[in-house]
């Protein structure tokens, strides 16, 4: 099925190639993400998952290709997109509190040159209570556990009140309670008609969490509803000769099916 790139898609990518030092990281990507789905982006390390997400938000230059968010370039649609970066991408020793970090999601609404006011901080607190850590609002962020830090990032994304969320490995190294909290949050967003595109690395939970999957290894191996696309054959194509991973994948499939 050839992607149609219509304006109703939260994300439409046409012929995207990104290269570092002339070596392609992602190659000739053609992809439409349907609205209202939880989309998992899966592939081996170095497959270009984070690169794909960053390219969509103009964070890294692209060698070629066009990307549109609801039919327009990212620059014009900033307010529709929420971003959850990888947890390791920031300095957790920075002198800010959890509430300060969440309030950053509101900076666009606050506007240039204007200070953050009480109503913004109240909103940040509300978002923190939404992810279950309101009592940690005043804590400096290095004094939070890994799972709590991830919740802060999610609360910040919620504060952005976007229609389309891109999340880079939100499940990486979090405790079981946080993992459950993130899943219920994703479902809640979906029920509100929002779209989430999530980079994910745990094959065992793909079928359980996502209703749409993008299999990526420099190129798109396949993309579509999880039932149709998340097959053993596709995983073999995505992960290549990495046998141990394939065993894991096969197990994941059985596991996934037994959950339905």
């Amino acid at each position: 099925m050839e992607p149609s790139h219509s304006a109703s898609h939260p994300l439409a990518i046409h012929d995207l190639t990104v290269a570092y030092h002339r070596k392609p990281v992602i190659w000739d990507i053609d992809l439409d993400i349907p609205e209202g789905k939880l989309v998992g982006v899966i592939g081996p390390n170095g497959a270009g998952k984070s690169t794909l997400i960053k390219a969509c938000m103009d964070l890294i230059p692209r060698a070629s290709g066009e990307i549109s968010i609801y039919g327009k370039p990212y620059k014009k649609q900033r307010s529709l997109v929420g971003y959850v970066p990888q947890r390791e991408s920031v300095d957790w020793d920075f002198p800010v509190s959890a509430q300060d970090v969440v309030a950053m999601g509101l900076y666009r609404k606050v506007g240039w040159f204007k200070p953050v006011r009480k109503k913004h901080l109240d909103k940040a607190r509300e978002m923190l209570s939404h992810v279950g850590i309101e009592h940690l609002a005043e804590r400096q962020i290095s004094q939070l556990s890994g799972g709590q830090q991830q919740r802060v990032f999610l609360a910040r994304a919620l504060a952005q009140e976007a229609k389309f969320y891109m999340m880079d490995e939100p499940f990486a190294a979090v405790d079981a309670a946080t993992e459950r909290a993130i899943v219920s949050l994703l479902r809640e967003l979906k029920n509100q008609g929002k779209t989430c595109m999530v980079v994910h690395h745990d094959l065992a939970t793909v079928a359980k969490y996502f209703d749409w999957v993008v299999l990526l290894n420099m190129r798109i191996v396949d993309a579509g509803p999880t039932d149709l696309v998340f097959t053993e054959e596709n995983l073999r194509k995505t992960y290549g000769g990495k046998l141990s991973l394939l065993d894991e994948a096969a197990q994941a499939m059985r596991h996934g099916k037994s959950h339905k």
Partner: protein
Amino acid sequence: MTWMPADTSIVVVGSLCAVACALPGCFMVLRRMSMMGDAISHAVLPGLALGFLLTGSRASLPMFMGAAVMGLLTAYFTQSISKWGKVDRGAAMGITFTTMFALGLLLIVQATDHVDIDPGCVLYGALELTPFNTFGVIEMAGYIIDIPHSAIVLSIVLCMNLGIIILLFKEFKISAYDPELATTLGINAQLMHYLLMAMVAVTTVAAFESVGSIIVIAMLVVPAATAQLLTDNLKIMLVISAVVGVLAAVMGHISAIIVPPMLGFDGTSTSGMIAGSAGLLFMFVWLFAPRYGLVAKLFSSRKIEVPEMVASRDSACPK
């Protein structure tokens, strides 16, 4: 020891310089690029020389413009070299600023055939001479107060830095903490970085003639690093760094008067003593800061910490 009006102006100029440097210094320390101040304070030299050679005067404005341009170029070259040359940022910085500093020295040596810019003066400054270079005199309540020229220049730069940081506080904050998120929100972290570098370059030049470039580097880094050990709040960190800067200036000048005679020398440079005092202040805080000090850490590591499992069970309540 006798305190003269000249001593007051030296301390005032030193403090103005310290605070003007400490404010942008906080953001540089937080972005983990403290040595960029070192790089820029050297790299502005060709800017100063060019400003002078082109206009033929030592007027401040062309020199500031030259310096700001060189500051931006330093930031740009550092970035490009580390990106395209596959070398780390520190190395790229080293390549950039030594080359530019060398170029500046060449230009100055050229110029000194005609005028007096003294390379030694650029490095060490002449804080002790500030009272003699007066801008004007005001009479207040019967006292005659000389206003040093450098006090005026540094006040303007300090106000400018303060104004920019107050106006763009949250933009600087998010660009330093999470540049990618800032950029996706439409606050270009790269541009904010260049603005910061321009501020540092202009501040450096303003401080050059009074305290010299070596002290500028100390004032850009040490008060900010000291403040970081004392607070978890960015606004408070900015205030503390300014206080530490002023303390260092006062302590530095007093010890420059007192210490050398005690050791049998006849005098020393106030600038050097200011930097030394800042170092001592840092050391004191590093040892005794309530939470992040060495002593506090030694004590707290003896206590048993609450295991992560127990802590997360208390907080884990997904809605």
